[in-house]
């Protein structure tokens, strides 16, 4: 199913789109308590108005180098299988409408890890990756090339 509206976010200079129907909240990243022994891409747990949300380091998940300082990062709270997860991203942009015509399959040259978490490429002025929340949360992602 192709989403009609996307929340745009920036991750390491790349534009990503997340299906707006899966997004519950967009917040400025606050205090995150790390969870020792958890996978590296799980940044920790945080308090979102009395709810405990698991924070996902999206850079680590996409195989990008970590940001030196998380201060100023944004957090997109999505729901996956009934649980809230906070995707830590560099910045959050507008909500945009997409036309199915604008979406094309992943180019085969795309990094394997990105292939897994991308549901396709949206042709805007710049190209945007259609992020797959399901794949980000579930897939045993290939080691970044």
């Amino acid at each position: 199913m192709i989403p009609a509206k996307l929340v745009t976010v920036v991750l390491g200079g790349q534009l990503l789109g997340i299906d707006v129907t899966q997004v519950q909240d967009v917040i400025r990243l606050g205090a995150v308590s790390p969870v020792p022994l958890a996978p590296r891409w799980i940044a920790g747990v945080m308090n979102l108005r009395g709810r405990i949300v698991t924070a996902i380091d999206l850079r680590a998940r996409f195989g990008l180098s970590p940001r030196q300082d998380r201060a100023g990062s944004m957090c997109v709270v999505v729901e996956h299988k009934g649980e809230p997860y906070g995707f830590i991203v560099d910045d959050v942009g507008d909500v945009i409408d997409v036309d199915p015509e604008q979406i094309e399959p992943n180019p085969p040259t795309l990094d394997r890890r990105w292939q897994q978490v991308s549901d396709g490429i949206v042709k805007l002025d710049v190209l945007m990756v259609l992020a797959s929340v399901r794949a980000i949360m579930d897939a045993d992602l290939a080691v970044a090339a």
Partner: protein
Amino acid sequence: MDELLGDFLTETAENLQTVDNEIVLFERDPGNRDVLNNIFRLVHTIKGTCGFLNLPRLERLAHAAETVLGKVRDGQAQVTPAVVSETLSAIDGIKVILAALEASGKEPAGDDEAQIARLNAAIAAPEAPKAEFAPEAVPSLEQDAAAGRGIQSIRVSVALLEQLMTTVSELVLTRNELLQHLRTLKDDRLAVPLQRLSAQVGELQESVMRTRMQPISNAWNVLPRLVRSLSVELGKPIELDMQGGETELDRQLLELIKDPLAHMVRNAADHGIEAAEQRMASGKDARGRIVLKAAQEGGHIVITLADDGRGIDVARLKAKAVALRLLTETDAAQLSAQQAQRLVFHPGLSTADEVTSVSGRGVGMDVVRANIEKIGGAIDIESTAGKGTQFTIRIPLTLAILPALIVASGGQRFAVPQMAVVELVRVGANSEHVVEYVNNAAVMRLRGRLLPLIHLGTLLGIGDGRGGGDYVLIARAGNISFGLIVDNIFDTEEVVVKPVAPILKTLSVYSGNAILGDGAVIMILDANGIAASLGIAGESDVSDALEAPVRDAAQETDAMLLFRAGSPHPKAVPLSLVARLEEFDAAAIEWSEGRPVVQYRDALVPLLAVDGTLTPRVEGRQPALIFDDGTSLVALMVDEVLDIVDTHVDICMTSDLPARLGTAVIAGRATEILDVAHYLSRAGSTAAPAEDKGGRRVLIVDDSAFFRNMLKPLLASAGYRAMTAASADEALALRESGECFDLILSDIEMPGLSGVDFARAVRGDDRWRETPLVALSSLAGEEHVRQGEAAGFDQYVAKFDRSRLLDAVARQFKGEAA
């Protein structure tokens, strides 16, 4: 639905439940006027209200029941089982009508003339004189006393209570947050009112929690009726004894344990308790007994349900598990009796061969276990063939709020449930306690015992491990205690526990997470999970019996104390044989008849060297291992204690030296295993010289080469002729080859035939039937002893208890002579 009718239905439902119990009580004690009056009054109320609401069918039936009860009350009729049964059945009829009323708001069509006729017939029938119903002792019910008191309570909807609870939980968090801010602000004007607010919120929380608490008897009050009808249906007299019904439990938990309990009672009545003839044949009271007890133990409620029935047939259970392909035959053979009993918690296993209308369909105990674990509880089973079965359920008092200790490690905070914390110890320079290292393992001496320690930071991969840890939190997981080294300990805080996200579920060291007063999220550590992740989970760990039966039985491990003495090569003794580790001041070492001695616990204890070459230190402190067999004490000088390892000891090379059992590979190094018995025998003149026991033949059956090698010389030095077998099968092969023994010592936990099965095999054949059998086991719990004795063991001795072992052997022979 009419509001009036709604009220009537709610009230009647409650009244009916009371009537059920009162009637069962009444049957047992027909002379009790109070009970009779209560029943009569309740039925009368139902009838009266029916007339008012125009419910003719219900009224007619209630009237008939009232008439019967009235006659009994006035002494015009006797209480007979028929009267009780028909009254109960009439009440069931009332319930059916009420259910239909509730669903449709109208009385269902139909009539109850047949029931009414039976009711009337029951009192008309000539019956045995009243004297036959000798009054039995009946536990006095609180209702008796409470009857007649005015109404002291009002009805509040559960949803409202829940909402109140949630709000109060949030209020507690907000208060905690305020208190945190106050600490940084240090504003005196706020301090006093905030303190007051804090206390009031605390009281409020407690009161609200109490509104959710209900006596556990609320979950029980359906049971007497259940047992009574089961008793009639199954044709077995069964008595239900309930103790501790006043124990209070969170309402939510109460709801959740109601069905599991009813199911377990049904099981106990159906296939726990035998038929009356069978019971009498085995010398039991014809009347089966089910005892249900509840008590509060700390933050837990412990419920036990025991029957005095036939117990669980372990062999049949195993066979069934094999037939259902849950276990292979080899796995099944290696399960200990206790592990095998836990198979009842496995889906699809039910020991009843016949499916009755009551139970035996194999759905149940797995669901019971799942339901109990869902609420953070645990269930265990203990069963003795022929004697009965007891289930023990532990559940937390409440689900909502958990008092937890906040600790810090590696710059992060963690919560430890107060329940798991035994004590806190400060370590370091100014404390009497120090963290010591044997090899790289941290330990601490606590009241003469060595406690294994874990650096929380190292465990979690945060922080460098050594240094910084100033506090040791002693935690308990099952039967195992261990110390967690942390950097800092803060307050206790009450936290609202929330489960961790599914992607973190695999991390067994956490049991949940929570939001602290300052708004930060904290991970809650799970002591059981930590113990398990370190592989130090104890016997008591009721993990799945099916998971790893082989490891437990075949690879029996022993805790060995490794040390150096006299030479650089490591030496070892079983830790369980070491009474204490001591360090004597060199100045305190005295000499007597050319041998070094120390004064220890008001006695002179010889200071022995491993090989006679080591002389005590002349300055500083002399470390020594103290061995104590109850009659003599010796101190064995060592250079240093290296480590304590839990390992499977397999002696690869035997030794000619008197003080050695041989050499084994421990922690990757060839290690000499010392014979503690040798040193104890040198304790001095107190030990009598080994008398000739006439060459009595003793068979030792143990799968551990280490023990066979330790026991054989021990028995030989006591004057017996010992032979060994590495398994029960090997021992039975000796029987086939015509060997005879004066005594058999057998291990319990063995791969293949267990000791208990072995005992049955020995007792089941004429050749060795009369040979005294002594069980050797590291598991010497009461339950094990019972099981062992039931299988044919004459005596039970803890494996490491040398003096008691020799004692037991001597006693068996004495018994034979007498």
